[in-house]
Each structure stands twice: as structure tokens, then as C-alpha cells.
């Protein structure tokens, strides 16, 4: 167990470290000097700038570009690991960490809801595709529901938005809660949040549940032929009891590993969903930062999302041996 844990922990740290390093190196390979770009924006906003040479010197010093690269790098790693991403250049002088702190709860909330719904619906439908007692109409309908599988959720998001928001005014077009509601722990606020969250969550669910359903289908086919299933049938156990306790329970294990790997894609997809629904989470923050070339925010958001993904994978790796006692540790 100790070796397995050490192994996973090492991978986690390496992932975070490599991601942080990539985010640091890439902008420095760019031919565009960030200070030049910043001065350019200032000039385009307010005419000529006097003493631009002096300002440039000042800014170079302020951001530490005059230090040797290894000093810059170690300072950066130290700051990143303490979640100090510097100040936003667009909404100066708000710290990036504070902006991320405001956006993170929205993203995590939406993601968790979407993830849980997808996992349950996907695995149930996948099991029903194989189960021999599934009602006939369901057997025909379920495969047709899979067509959206593996699409980017912006496509489903646009369609849902058009149907349920533009054409039928059932759900709001954007935002996370109504403009006339105060963000507080009241029933009307929570109701508004749920009302606004339905379409973004649905657009993620629609494109991701099929992945689990198809995986579950393959696993159920294997479980169906196993001796214990045949024995359970011979014993005359209830059909549903066999489905839940014998078949799904045994088939679901590899799905949990896939769960971990899928989180990364889900988070990235959600960035886009938030962008089209103007949902005030990490994705919107990232998009706004791209528009205003706010590098500290872009780097901070990318790092935090990668960190979240790596942590999720790590946690699933830890939980997995608890769920499946057969797993060989240390391998």
C-alpha cells in the first residue's frame, strides 16, 4: 500500500510540476515581449506615452524580467505552489487568486452536478442495453440517444439554447442567477441558480453520458455470461435484484477508472459551455482573460484547472483499491 501511495503521489506532483513549468516556458518562447504588448495597449488606449523607455525599465524590474532565468523560474514555482498568481493586468490591481476564488465554486458546483447525473444515467442506460428484460421500446430508443456522444458540449449547448431559451422561453439565456436576485442563502436565490444551471448542465450531460453507457454495455456483456449470474438466475432471484446486485455491481468497477480519466476532458469542455452561457465560472474568466490578453489570469486559471484534474485522478486512484479488493497493489 505504501509503495502504491508513494507512486501515485509522485505522479501527482510530477503532473502539477510539469504543467506549471509548461505554463511558464511557453509565453517566454513567444517573440512578443509582454511589456511591449502592455505598453502597446496603453498607447492605443491613451495616445502617446511619455518616457516609455523609463516605464519599460520600471515594469521590467517590477515583473522581475531583469533577473536571470533560474531566479525567475524558482520565484514562479514558489509563488504558484502558494497560489500567488500575481495581479490581473486587466482589472488591475485585483489579485488573480481572488478572481479564481470567486469563479471556482460555480465551476465545481456545475461540474459535480453534471458528473453525477451523467454517471448514473450513462451506466443505467448502458446496463439496460444489455439486460434481457429491458422493455422493447427502450431497447430501440437507447442506442439512438447515443448520437451526441463525444461531441464538444458547445454543439449541444447551442442547440439546447436555441430550443429551450430562444424559441421556447423556458430557461434563461445566460448567467448563473437572475439580475433581480441577491446572492444569499435564500430560497429564491437557490431556485434561480438551479433554473440557470439546467441548460449548461444538460448540455454537458447530453454529450458525455454515452461514453459511460457504451463502456457499461461492453462490461455487462461480459458479466452476463459469468457463472455467478447464471447461478443467481437458477436460484430464482428477482430479476431486478440480479441486475443491480449481481450484474451492475460487478461491471461498474472499470467504469470508475474511466471516470478519473474523463474528468480532464469534462473540465476542458465545461470551459466552452461556460463561455457560451456566460456562466461566471473558470471558463468565462479564462475567455475574458483571452480577450483582454490578461496573461496572469490565463496562466492562473489553466494551472488551477490542471491541478483540479490531477487531484481528481489521484483521489480516484486512492479510492479504487478500497472499492475493488481484488486490485493488486504496487503494480
Amino acid at each position, binding site marked *: 500500500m505504501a509503495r502504491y501511495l508513494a507512486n501515485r503521489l509522485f505522479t501527482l506532483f510530477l*503532473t502539477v510540476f*510539469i504543467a506549471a513549468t509548461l505554463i511558464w516556458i511557453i509565453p517566454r*518562447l513567444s517573440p512578443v515581449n509582454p511589456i511591449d504588448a502592455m505598453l502597446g495597449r496603453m498607447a492605443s488606449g491613451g495616445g502617446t506615452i511619455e518616457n516609455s523607455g523609463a516605464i519599460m525599465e520600471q515594469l521590467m524590474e517590477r515583473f522581475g524580467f531583469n533577473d536571470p532565468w533560474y531566479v525567475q523560474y524558482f520565484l514562479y514555482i514558489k509563488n504558484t505552489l502558494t497560489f500567488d498568481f500575481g495581479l490581473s493586468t486587466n482589472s488591475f490591481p485585483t489579485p488573480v487568486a481572488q478572481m479564481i476564488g470567486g469563479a471556482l465554486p460555480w465551476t465545481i458546483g456545475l461540474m459535480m452536478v453534471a458528473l453525477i447525473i451523467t454517471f448514473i444515467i450513462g451506466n443505467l442506460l448502458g446496463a439496460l442495453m444489455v439486460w434481457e428484460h429491458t422493455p422493447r421500446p427502450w431497447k430501440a430508443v437507447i442506442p439512438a440517444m447515443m448520437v451526441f456522444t463525444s*461531441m464538444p458540449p458547445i454543439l449541444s449547448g447551442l442547440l439546447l439554447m*436555441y430550443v429551450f431559451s430562444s424559441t421556447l422561453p423556458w430557461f434563461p439565456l445566460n448567467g448563473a442567477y437572475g439580475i433581480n436576485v441577491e446572492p444569499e442563502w435564500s430560497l429564491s436565490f437557490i431556485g434561480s441558480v438551479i433554473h440557470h444551471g439546467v441548460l449548461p448542465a444538460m448540455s454537458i450531460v447530453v454529450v458525455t453520458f454515452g461514453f459511460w453507457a457504451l463502456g457499461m454495455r*461492453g462490461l455487462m456483456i461480459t458479466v452476463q455470461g459469468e457463472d455467478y449470474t447464471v447461478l443467481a438466475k437458477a436460484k430464482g432471484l428477482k430479476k431486478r435484484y440480479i441486475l443491480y446486485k449481481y450484474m451492475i455491481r460487478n461491471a461498474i468497477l472499470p467504469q470508475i477508472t474511466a471516470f478519473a480519466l474523463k474528468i480532464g476532458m469534462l473540465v476542458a469542455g465545461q470551459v466552452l459551455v461556460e463561455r457560451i452561457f456566460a456562466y461566471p465560472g473558470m471558463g468565462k474568466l479564462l475567455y475574458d482573460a483571452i*480577450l483582454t490578453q490578461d*496573461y496572469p489570469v490565463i496562466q492562473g486559471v489553466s494551472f488551477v484547472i*490542471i491541478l483540479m484534474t490531477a487531484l481528481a485522478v489521484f483521489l480516484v486512484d486512492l479510492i479504487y483499491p478500497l472499492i475493488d479488493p481484488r486490485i493488486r497493489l504496487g503494480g
Partner: protein
Amino acid sequence: MSDPTNAAAPETAAPDMAGLTKRQLKRMKRFDNPWNNPKLIWGVSLLLGIVALGIFGRLFWDTDLVFTGAVMPSQAPVGFENLRGQVGLASSPLGTDVAGKDLLALLIVGAPNSLYVGVLASLIGMSLGIFLGFTAGYTGGRVDDVIRVSSDVMITIPPLLILVVVQASFGDITLTMMAVLIAAFVWQSPTRLIRAQVLSMRESGYVQMARLSGASDRHIMFREMLPNLVPYLFGSFIANVTTAIVTAVGLEVLGLGPQRVPTLGRVIYDAIDSAALTRDMWWWWGFPTVLLMVMFIGLLLINLGLDEVSNPRLRRL
């Protein structure tokens, strides 16, 4: 206990032969080619349809209409009206955007571009994966450790976020550049897959036989092992094409794709940016969305078909 529903419906796939209908029995006797799979054929046809749109579209339609101001802006498709009540004209059968670009021309140029990025990125990723997977599985030891850990690490990092940083710092890039960048994130799963398969094949009878007969490492890798991996490689390739297109479209929708070449994601970006949804210009975002959906459905069908080719248990009678 006998089950009345099951007895009444003998078509349901039962493990015993007695419960099969005549048609199913006939199908079992037939010597059928697993590649002759309806899902696979449908998927390939859909993708070929998009390629054909790109090739024949160029012959029959003026692709210069993708430039700003080429046609009258905000026109509805033929048979529909825009918000000003103007009927769509045959000169732009799929309508135009607010900048006066022709939608049909945008689709003809944009759709093959998305496919090109996906296929190129996946090809590069695949070649890297085959090379690294074989090296890791065959050599073992330190080399294996390094390759295994780095693919474990890289599989966790969502490509979109690193690429956002790349694009934001470098500005405009070409389609090929984008494909190469995406390829840096799609080599991990083929590497893992091939490594695992090579490890299990290394001990198999025919590989040991080849080794005893004095075959070179290269011969064993490419002549003995690789042909057995073909169905897996195809599956992995298609899955990677999907991932690559999803990533590319994601970047384009964030406004970070190539700026000078029309892509489907870029059209959607412009449409969202100009509030096409509230202006009820459904054709602007709708046609590229539908075309991308067709592309993904095609890829999904190919993937499902390939699954059935390599795993006979999934085949339906």
C-alpha cells in the same frame, strides 16, 4: 422458473442456440466478413460525404465568397426570411453572416479544414505512440519507466488549457501548426495501449518462435507484432481524431484558432460573438453546428464499428 416474456420473444439474444430464430441461425452459419459492418460503413460514408463537400464544393461554388463583404450581409437561407423580412436569395442558398460572408462557401472551406487538423494531429500522435509504445514494451527497464510515467503525467493534463496558453502567447498560427501542437497531447493513449499489448505479446508462442528462429528485433516488432495490433490501432486512431477535432474546435470557439483560414469553430465563434442567437440568425451557427455533428456521429459510428470488429461479443445477431 420459466419466464413467459422470454418464451414469447425468442429473438432476444440468449446464450443457448435453441432460443434463436431462423434468421439468426442463418446469420451464424454465414461466413461473414467482420469488416462488412453497417456501423463502420455508415460512419465512413458520413465522413466521405464531408470530404466530398470540400472537393466538389470547390468545383461548383466560388470559395472567394468567404471574404468579408463578398455578398450582402445578414441574408436568410433560401425559403426563409431574416428579421427585416427579406427573403433568402439563390445567390447565397445557405444565407450570409453580418460581415457579408457566404455560409455555403464557409462550410465548403471550413469543414475539410477541421477534418485535416484532426487526421494530421492523430497521425503524428499515432506514430509517436507506436514508436514509444514499442520501445517501452520491448526494451523495458529505465526507458520503460520514463515513458510510462510521462504518459501517465501527460494523460492528466487537458490539452485545451495548455494550448490556450500557447495561442494566447503566440497569436495567429496556421492549421498545420495547430495540428502539430494538438499532436503533443494525443500520443499518450496509443502509447499505453501498445505498451500493454506488446508486454503480453512478448511472451506469446509465435514471438518466442520467431526469436528462436533468429529473427531481428525489427522483424519481430513490425512483422510479428504490429499486424496483430491493427484493429486496436484503428480504434485508437479514430478516438484520437475525435479528441483532436474537439480540441481544435474548442480553441476556435474561444477565438484562438487560425485567424486567416475559415474553420467551422471560427464561424461559430463569430456567430456567438455577434449575438446570432438573439438576432434569430439560426443559419449562421446552425449549419456549422450540424456539419460538426455529422462529423462526430461519423467518427462515433466508425469507432463503434471497429469495436465490433475487434470484439465479436459486441456483434449483434
